[in-house]
């Protein structure tokens, strides 16, 4: 019985992240629109977009290979599984041990690898430009992410997110310099990984500034829907990750009753909303960077996270 309950909770979490992801995207768009004094599309617009895209036929480039057609599902599935590994309303779920933070980074890396390959598949120059810039940004953001994982893991003594969250909740972690550095670095990495301003602009189709949009330029119909859903899931994933590591308040334990789950879900909703609103405000208050200024921006995350890890190796109290 307990196993079935645990299984259900795990399933609920998987469906929850999937269901909430487009809403979060809609929220960020709404916040940005309001800040621009527009009314903006309704919050549920991303769901409608997805439904519309899924109902449409795929228009495939003549020389696209099987990789191009499989890629959207691989990207979606790896992002979804990665997102489901992150504690949202409850920690220590049934399958949470099947992958730690490094595995989550690896799953996202797989998704990006396939995405960049799919961009090169048709052999257009826009696909190339997108893939080229994406791997450059990733070559800075990925090591930064691993180093952030190191910082967190060294403090919590584990790379398991559930254990990290419980450690942050219960132990006297206090204010640590290394954690602060890791938080700043993680926010920068999240910006870069989710193709948000100032790294990339999710709303642009201006040729010279596109990164992610250039990679998915050839996609249409249900393929595009899967990719868009993956993008939404990734945004949710990063906000959940920041919430889970740095603000784990309200997180329920897997064995807790429905009441704790409700509290966890409520606090998760609050955190997601806060994250989405803050992202919207941040995006509105900063300009997009030139591509070759990005290494400085994302490189700063790499340096900050390295500094955090060095501090932890030198002194346990930092």
């Amino acid at each position: 019985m307990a196993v079935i309950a645990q299984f259900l909770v795990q399933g609920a979490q998987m469906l929850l992240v999937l269901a909430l992801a487009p809403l979060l995207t809609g929220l960020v768009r709404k916040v940005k629109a309001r800040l621009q004094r527009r009314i903006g599309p309704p919050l549920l617009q991303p769901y409608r977009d997805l439904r519309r895209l899924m109902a449409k036929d795929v228009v495939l480039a003549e020389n696209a290979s099987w990789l191009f057609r499989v890629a959207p599902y691989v990207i979606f599935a790896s992002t979804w599984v990665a997102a489901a590994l992150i504690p949202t309303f409850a920690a220590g779920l049934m399958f949470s041990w099947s992958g730690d933070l490094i595995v989550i980074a690896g799953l996202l890396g797989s998704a990006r690898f396939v995405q960049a390959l799919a961009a090169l598949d048709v052999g257009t120059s826009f696909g190339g430009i997108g893939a080229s810039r994406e791997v450059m940004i990733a070559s800075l953001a990925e090591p930064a992410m691993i180093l952030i994982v190191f910082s967190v893991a060294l403090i919590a003594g584990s790379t398991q997110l559930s254990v990290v969250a419980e450690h942050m909740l219960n132990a006297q972690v206090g204010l640590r310099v290394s954690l602060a550095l890791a938080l700043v670095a993680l926010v920068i990495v999240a910006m870069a990984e989710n193709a948000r301003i100032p790294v990339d602009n999710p709303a642009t189709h201006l040729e010279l500034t596109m990164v992610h949009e250039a990679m998915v330029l050839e996609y249409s119909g249900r393929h595009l829907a899967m990719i868009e859903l993956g993008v939404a899931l990734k945004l949710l994933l990063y906000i959940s990750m920041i919430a889970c590591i740095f603000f784990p308040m309200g997180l329920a334990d897997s064995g807790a009753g429905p009441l704790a789950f409700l509290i966890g879900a409520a606090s998760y909703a609050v955190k997601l909303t806060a994250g989405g609103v803050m992202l919207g405000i941040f995006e509105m208050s900063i300009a997009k960077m030139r591509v070759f200024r990005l290494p400085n921006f994302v490189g700063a995350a790499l340096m900050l996270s390295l500094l955090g890890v060095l501090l932890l190796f030198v002194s346990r109290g930092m």
Partner: protein
Amino acid sequence: MMSLVLICIIALCLLAVLGAALAHAPAGRFVVYGGCVLVSVVSFVTGLAAISGPLVRMALPLGIPWIGVHFRLDVLSGFFLLLLGIGAAGASLFAIGYGAHEEEPQRVLPFYPLFLAGMHMVLIADDAFVFLFSWELMSLASWALVLARHRKAGNAQAGFVYLVMAVFSGLAMLLAFGMLAGPDGGYAFDAMRMAHPGAGVAALVFALVLIGAGSKAGLVPLHVWLPLAHPAAPSHVSALMSGVMTKIALYGFIRLVFDILGGAPWWAAAIVLALGGITAVLGVLHALMEHDLKRLLAYSTVENIGIVFVGLGLALAFRANGFAAGAALAFTAALFHALNHTLFKSLLFFCTGAVLNATGTSDMERLGGLIKRMPVTSAAMLAGCAAISALPPMNGFASEWLTFQAVLLRPELPQWGLKLMIPVDGALLALAAALAAACFVRAFGIAFLGRSRSAAATDAREADRWSIGAMAGFGALCLLTGLFPGVVIDLLGPVSQTMVGARMPHQMSDPWLTTVPVEASRSSYNALLLFAFVGASGWLAAVIVKRFGSSGLRRSPAWDCGFPDPSPMTQYTGASLSQPIKRVYGELAFWARDEVDMPAPGEMRAARLTSSRYDPIWDGVYAPIGFLIGAAANVLNVLQFLTIRRYLGFVFVALIVLLVLLALWQ
């Protein structure tokens, strides 16, 4: 068991003779490579048995009179014999098909089995004489193979550099053994184990072994021969050299440092860690700048050797501080990565060889669109690229994940050098992994995807059945070792027990076959479950979308923002894909410069783009040394044209000087 290995070696020598005799017969390659496959399977099984079996010794009255030769098969030899067996079986199977395209088979067939025999013998050597003899046999046979196409431009130089580096490596190993044997000349490994040299001698031996084994393995700054020799050799030999011979060099390092010297002080571990980290990053950065697939793979081998050396350095550091459990984790991670590298690098060289046969070039700027012409090769290459880029659920990820876990152990180390070096190495490894992913997106994306850039690529044909068998088999092995890392970790248990005095916990008894390096609350990884989840959810998504959404599909010209480019030459090339990375890292590492010479408006001359790159190791170290040697040779050349009186005078002076020195010494 020992006799089985000796029979393998004898069989290989016979195959070499057969290879020379049957070089021009059509059946020659079936006999030689087929024989090599059989022998390799036997050595694989023997290795597997040796890991769990007892230690076997054998002494034969051969070689130097009254000393004889000593052989020994222990768990470490067993593991590397297993690795050699897999790599050699795959390469030989691939070669049955690949060898059909060989223009001068008499330059390959006799030396290939000899090369394998040399590597076998290194692994069972139990005295310095056998070790050095087989070490040099391995070097010389592979040198002959590198020169198999000696008339092709650049190959002669590659052979020369390789020979110089091999001799240098042999010299360093010779001196190391000399120091270990001491004045009494105890050349058996057992005598060396008992000798317990002083700190100074041990340090010197360590440095010599690091140079000797490091230059064979491809440790920066001794890696310069790899990117020259690997492309020059036939592809199945490249696969062996890159995938297996570098591992034999690692074996030499482990045997001498971990076993015979019995560990190393912390500063030695710090040196290994520093060199390993630098090797990993510099290797992959070089790989990102290359457009020849085989050179790219050679540089990527340098990167992976760096990763293995980081693991070994961690093991040495933990062991020097008496932290056996940590040393076991790091050591297992290093050897696991070595095995993984054998699998995926051999696979990548097979695929590149198949492409080379099908199109006549391994230059990615002249390829493209091969995924449609060569579907199986492309799928295998994709598996290899995913594995080497350390993507879950492939095997490369499993071993890098273990290495990261070893970095994260962070025991209380008293030495500040290690305290700072270990996190920096973690950062370098993470950087190398990310750059490797970029490198292989580029390698696969440019060569196999997109539109073909040359007629040769347009007309490419799928490889033969033998090659496909080897590629598909190794692709499957990369996935399987990734899904069941516990099997390899448990296999490595006895090896790490004998070498560092501890082993990782049993993995196969964990529920759901989860990999748990230390304890479940610390970290765990279940590749099988994740693979099932990703596969199931991707499949489910496809089914649901097609059922409830649309399942229609139309083909049309590429959209490309409304500006479809008619010529395949307008696609991104390898150079343009890595240009941002070159700009970010290349300026720092290689002083890479792009200079644009734009004519003023109205001027009729063409614009020019000059791209320059400075290799700090080759241009900064090797070129000056080569120049100095050349200059010295020029100056000393006069010595060859003296009269006999002068030569007699030199002999006389030399004699006097030596006598005086001897008198002063006393």
